[in-house]
C-alpha cells in the first residue's frame, strides 16, 4: 500500500492542495518520542513471540502532533480533571461499612502500583475475568457495601483512570494461560470475525492497515494501553468497550453490550496483543 502512495506522490510531482495535510504523507507510525513531564515512556517495542505483529506501537504514535502534545504534561492533559475527582473519591467513605478505598488500600500510589497492567485478570470468585471496572465494583459492593458504579459513569471512568495512572510507564502484562485461555480464544474469534454490512474485522483495519489513512483517520493498531482515554470527540474519558462499540457501529454492525462477556473477552484479547507496551493511562485521542 505504501508503495502505491509513494508512486502517486511522485507522479503528482508538486503535491496538490489536498496533499498538504501532514498526516497524509505519514504512511506509518511517526518517529516521535513521548516524554511526560520529562520522563520517557516507550511507545513501541519489538512484538513478543507469538504476536501476529512484528512491532507493537502505541496509538499515540499515529495521532497528530497537536493531539500528541496534549499528553506530554499532566497539566495540559484534559484527562487530569477526572484524576482530581478520583483522588477525592479514593478518600471518601461510602456505603454501609463506612469505608473508602483508602481504608483498605492506603495511598493510591502505593496500593495500586502496577495493578492495572495485569487487567483483565482471572477471578475465581466470578468464574470469569475481572476487568478493572468489575474489580472496582466488587470492592464497592462487597467490601464497602456501596452501590456499584455504571460502566461509563464519570466516577468509574475517573477511578479506573486513577488506578491506571499508577501503572503508567509499566509494561502491560496480561495473562493468557490457565483459565484465561478460553476467554482469549473467544476474544480472538471476535477480533477476526467479519461483521456488519461492510463485512470487516478488527484485523482488517488494525492489523493489516495500521499506518494507513482511512479518509481523515490515521489507523493505529487499536491498542488499549492508554485506556480509559480522554477523547476530544467525546469531550471526556471513555472505556475500551465504548471504543469497541464505535468501531463496530462504523462498519454497520450491531455492537455487543458495554460490559458484556463478548466485550470482556475482546478486551482481554486486545490487551494481550499489547503485552509489553507501556501503560499510558489516561492517554489523549482525537
Amino acid at each position, binding site marked *: *500500500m*505504501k508503495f*502505491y*502512495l509513494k*508512486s*502517486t506522490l511522485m*507522479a*503528482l510531482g508538486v503535491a*496538490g*492542495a*489536498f496533499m498538504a*495535510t501532514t498526516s*497524509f504523507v505519514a*504512511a506509518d507510525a511517526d518517529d516521535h518520542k513521548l516524554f511526560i513531564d520529562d520522563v520517557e515512556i516507550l511507545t513501541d517495542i519489538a512484538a513478543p513471540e507469538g504476536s501476529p505483529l512484528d512491532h507493537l506501537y502505541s496509538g499515540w504514535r499515529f495521532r497528530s502532533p497537536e493531539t500528541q502534545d496534549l499528553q506530554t504534561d499532566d497539566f495540559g492533559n484534559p484527562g487530569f480533571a477526572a484524576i482530581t475527582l478520583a483522588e477525592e473519591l479514593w478518600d471518601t467513605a461510602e456505603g454501609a461499612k463506612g469505608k473508602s478505598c483508602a481504608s483498605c488500600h492506603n495511598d493510591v500510589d502505593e496500593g495500586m502500583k502496577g495493578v492495572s497492567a495485569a487487567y483483565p485478570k482471572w477471578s475465581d470468585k466470578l468464574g470469569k475475568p475481572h476487568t478493572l471496572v468489575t474489580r472496582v465494583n466488587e470492592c464497592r459492593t462487597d467490601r464497602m457495601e456501596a452501590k456499584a458504579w455504571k460502566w461509563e459513569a464519570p466516577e468509574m471512568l475517573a477511578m479506573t483512570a486513577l488506578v491506571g495512572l499508577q501503572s503508567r510507564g509499566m509494561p502491560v502484562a496480561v495473562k493468557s494461560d490457565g483459565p484465561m485461555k478460553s476467554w482469549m480464544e473467544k476474544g480472538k474469534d471476535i477480533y477476526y*470475525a*467479519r*461483521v*456488519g*454490512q*461492510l*463485512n*470487516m*474485522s478488527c484485523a*482488517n*483495519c488494525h492489523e*493489516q*492497515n495500521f499506518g*494507513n*489513512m*482511512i*479518509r*481523515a483517520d490515521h*489507523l493505529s493498531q487499536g491498542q488499549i494501553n492508554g485506556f480509559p482515554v480522554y477523547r476530544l470527540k467525546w469531550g471526556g474519558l471513555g472505556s475500551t468497550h465504548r471504543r469497541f462499540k464505535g468501531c*463496530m*457501529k462504523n*462498519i*454497520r*454492525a*450491531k455492537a455487543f453490550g458495554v460490559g458484556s462477556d463478548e466485550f470482556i473477552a475482546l478486551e482481554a484479547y486486545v490487551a494481550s496483543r499489547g503485552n509489553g507496551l507501556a501503560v499510558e493511562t489516561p492517554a489523549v485521542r482525537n
Partner: protein
Amino acid sequence: MDISKYVIACFIAGSVSVASAADVAPADVVFTDDTMVENSLTGAAGDAVRGREIFSNRKQGNCLACHVNEQIPELGFHGEVGPPIDGVADRYSVSEMRAILVDSKKALSEDTIMPGFYSLDLGIRVLKKFSGKTVLTASQVEDVLAYLTTLKE
C-alpha cells in the same frame, strides 16, 4: 422486500436511487470466471456525474475513504488503504470493474478489506437497518462504474 420501507431508507441515507424491478437481484448477478460481470445490473448505462458524487459520499460508496483520486482535489483526506484509483480504466475492462464493485471478495481476493457493494454476502451481526441490503443499489453501482470508465491516464 417491503419496497416502501426500502425507499424510505434510501431517502434517509440521502440517496436518490431506488431499486427498480428491472434490476438484477444481487444473488442473480452472473459472473464470468469470477472476474467479470458483463451485463449492466439495471439494463442501462450509468451516469458518470452521479457516480463521481457517490464515489466520495461517506454514506454511499465512500470509496475515497480508501482510494486516492487525483480527479477529486477539492476534497481532502483521501485514504490509502487501497491502491490509487487514478487510471483504473486503463488497467481493467468495464466487466472487470463491475465485478470488483459487485463483489470484491469474489473478484479480487477473499480477504480483501474492500466491501462488496452489490452483494448479500455480508458480515455477521449486521445492524438491523442495513440487514438484507446491499451497500449500493444496482443503479448506484452502474453510476460509479460509468464514472470509473472516465478515469484514464
